[in-house]
């Protein structure tokens, strides 16, 4: 009797995956709800003078590609092969060994084979082979080629907006093939056809116009900062000054806009202000350079340069000596690896020297831009600030390395050094999930949207799973990080996978622990919650 019924396992397999093992080139891609991002608003794209602007959504059948779309792609690819050795090389040398296959957080969380970095790259490589290599031109599919069709464009859109450019795969690749590079190239190609996503294009347009991704105008920026000054006074009893556009200040401080706007970024922002006040730093914010982040990085190298331009321009106008960059991941990828090349040389600035400790930041000699964690760690090392770690005793802390600062910069120990001096309870997540092997939040590179939530939850699962481990093993209740996208997207991720763990900036803990001259009883922390729990101290 049982044989006649539909077995549940047939049902479950039937709909999604009942295909025999087909060549991946023959498996069609479906635009699935919860896994795609909306197309760019024409107004934003127009403001940035982007090509082929249209009112368009990826779930529509007709993507309104321009007449000569194939030519655009081929010309675009040809141009980029000549401009980027990385692209040319990564197209040619992959041996498909599979070392990267199970290193991508999206693959780990979904099992979708096209989320294996090697296959993601093959999506472009197959087209490259068919049109740019001798073997591919003659042998076509046999040589691993694939004809460029509208469906391939759709597949590119689907999968290259499912890569967060986190570079984890490139750590494991024997030739250092970096899928982030390939993703960046394909996104540039897609943008040539007007196929950008809104969560990248609109913030970029905002940033170009007002100076920050959120589109906050100068007076709004000032309001936010003034408001933060009030908040800080309420919490600490100290009134700080937070100058904006102040000419002749020694240091320009550039923060990601989420810092003065988003939760929990904001508490870190309070932390910076408290710190700068306490050490008497002569600094200024800028309403023009009111964004350190750079969604241009997720769009094209030209857009990255356009948005990044204002930082040096403003430093020059204000006549500062050097620049501090606040906590943000992709912002630091740009500042560290691209800014000086694109918009330098910064010969109008001076080599950064901490006015408090006298330390020369020789690692920022040319760029003249210092990471705030480098700056703060140096202060702590020289005993220039007084910290009371027990004020963070209500937190049991772990640290999430942001992809960009870890794999695109090598900033691993500075934040840990700060943490060890600002809290008493600190526990690392497992070894293969931190430092250079850190797992992405699953929402980086401009895909942290609500319409893409299911994909984000899948992609973030490996990270959340490691957090869950330290929550269960050590009672961790706070995940610290130094990335604005992390701070925006880890809270919903943890709310889903690991309820009970909060997210915070490193400088929120600094702000809490900082003993300030003239402070009040500090009974509440920067969040306005009860501070401390000073009695239960545990060894680190």
């Amino acid at each position, binding site marked *: 009797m049982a044989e006649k019924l539909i077995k549940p396992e047939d049902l479950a397999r039937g709909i999604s995956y009942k295909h025999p093992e087909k060549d*991946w080139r023959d498996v069609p891609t479906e635009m699935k709800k919860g896994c795609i991002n909306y197309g760019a608003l024409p107004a934003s794209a127009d403001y940035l*003078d982007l090509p082929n602007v249209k009112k368009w959504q990826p779930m529509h059948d007709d993507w309104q590609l321009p007449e000569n779309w194939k030519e655009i792609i081929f010309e675009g690819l040809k141009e980029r*092969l*000549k*401009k*980027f*050795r*990385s692209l*040319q*090389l990564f197209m*040619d*040398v*992959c*041996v*498909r*060994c*599979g*070392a990267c*296959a199970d290193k991508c957080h999206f693959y780990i969380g979904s099992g979708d*084979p096209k989320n*294996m970095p090697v*296959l993601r790259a*093959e999506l472009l490589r197959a087209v490259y082979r068919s049109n740019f290599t001798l073997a591919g031109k003659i042998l076509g599919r*046999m*040589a*691993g080629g694939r004809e460029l069709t509208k469906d391939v464009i759709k597949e590119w859109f689907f999968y290259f907006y499912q890569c967060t450019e986190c570079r984890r795969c490139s*750590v*494991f690749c*024997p*030739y*250092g*093939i970096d899928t982030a590079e390939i993703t960046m190239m394909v996104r540039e190609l897609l943008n040539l056809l007007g196929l950008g996503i809104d969560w990248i294009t609109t913030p970029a347009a905002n940033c170009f116009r007002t100076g920050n991704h959120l589109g906050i*105008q*100068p*007076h709004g920026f000032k309001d936010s900062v003034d408001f933060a000054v009030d908040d800080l006074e309420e919490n600490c009893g100290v009134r700080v000054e937070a100058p*904006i556009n102040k*000419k002749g200040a020694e240091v320009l401080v550039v923060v990601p806009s989420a810092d003065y706007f988003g939760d929990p970024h904001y508490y870190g922002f309070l932390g910076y202000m408290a710190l700068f006040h306490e050490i008497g730093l002569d600094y200024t914010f800028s*309403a*023009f350079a009111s964004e350190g982040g750079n969604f241009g990085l997720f769009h094209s*190298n030209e857009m990255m340069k*356009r948005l990044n*331009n*204002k930082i040096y321009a403003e430093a020059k106008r204000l006549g500062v000596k050097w620049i501090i960059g606040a906590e943000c991941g992709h912002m630091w990828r740009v500042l*560290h*690896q691209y800014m000086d*090349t694109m918009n330098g*040389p910064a010969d109008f600035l001076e080599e950064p020297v901490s006015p408090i400790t006298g330390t020369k930041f020789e*690692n*920022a*000699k*040319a*760029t003249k831009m210092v990471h705030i964690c480098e700056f703060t*760690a*140096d202060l702590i*090392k020289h005993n220039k600030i007084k910290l009371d770690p027990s004020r963070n005793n209500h937190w049991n802390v772990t640290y999430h390395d942001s992809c960009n600062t870890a794999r*695109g*910069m*090598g900033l691993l*120990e500075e934040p840990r*050094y700060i943490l060890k001096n600002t809290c008493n309870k600190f526990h690392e997540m497992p070894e293969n999930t931190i430092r250079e092997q850190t797992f992405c939040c699953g929402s980086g590179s401009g895909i942290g949207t609500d319409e893409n939530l299911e994909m984000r939850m899948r992609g973030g699962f490996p990270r959340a799973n490691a957090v869950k481990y330290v929550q269960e093993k050590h009672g961790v209740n706070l995940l610290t990080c130094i990335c604005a996208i992390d701070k925006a997207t880890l809270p919903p991720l943890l709310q889903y996978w690991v309820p009970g763990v909060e997210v915070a900036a490193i400088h929120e803990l600094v702000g809490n622990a900082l003993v300030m001259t003239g402070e009040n009883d500090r009974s509440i922390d920067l969040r306005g919650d009860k501070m401390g729990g000073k009695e239960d101290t545990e060894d680190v």
Partner: protein
Amino acid sequence: MHVISSLFILALLIGLVFLGVGVLDLQYLFGVIIPYAAITLFLAGVILKVLKWAGAPVPFRIPTTCGQQKSLSFIKADNLEAPHNIWGVLGRMILEVFFFRSLFRNTKTEIKDEKIVYGSDKLLWAAGLAFHYSFLFIFLRHFKFFAEPVPQLMSIMQKLDGFFQIGVPELFLTDIVFIGAVTVLFIRRVVIPQVRYISLPADYFPLYLILGIGGTGICMRYFSKVDIVAIKQLATGLISLNPIVPEGIGIMFFIHFFLVCVLFVYFPFSKLMHFAGVFMSPTRNLINNSRVKRHINPWNPEVKVHTYAEWEDEFREVMKDAGMPLEKE
């Protein structure tokens, strides 16, 4: 499917030798012309490819940092994983090229349920390393055919290789390692579903080719004896650009030799170019010093920017109302 199609090509190639040498008696074509053509194509192809790569600039300094950057004096920098000078890069490249550092990273001894579990990736690293080194060793060993007298180094290598003196002629360890490693790489590709899924004919074909070369080579040494003296004559003739084809070289040799030629020709057009590419990878061979020294992009584009003056023009009124400093009142 891909597994079969590329095997078919190998069979075709071997058939070609039987036809050419066995039936049509084209010893000179297979013994001299094709080898010269193959080596020419190989050299030209490799050089052109490398020049093509080198011709594309590295616009941005994009090393993948796998360790601590050099920043503050009290934080220990990791020069091998995030190189901050040329020595670091050299070290990193040596580890990468000679020890497959990145592949090794995969391998982790894991403890699960109190038991040690080895990750399957260790296999890839070990087999890869064993394959490349035994291949190199065998390749070098072949120079004994081209040089007279045989250099001492070759004799030493041969002695080492036949250390255990099993059988007559003594069994070379490298032969066993070589065949074993290639077989592992092949089986891995067929058995692990993810790897099978990503594999193309271009992945199976070189493995078949290499197995074919190794197989015929071993066959000649241990089973179907060929005239070594005649082969050495051919080899020295070729290398002194004074080619002669002596009588009595067995068909097995021609198959072996032809497959080597095919490998040489195939090389520059295939993924095998990774042997040169690994040296040029911008995520590995650059110093992580982009904040210390400005990296130049030769095509740094002119872009439209939003200037402060334009910005202030748009927001002057609101800024004035908010009491913010202005350039122009």
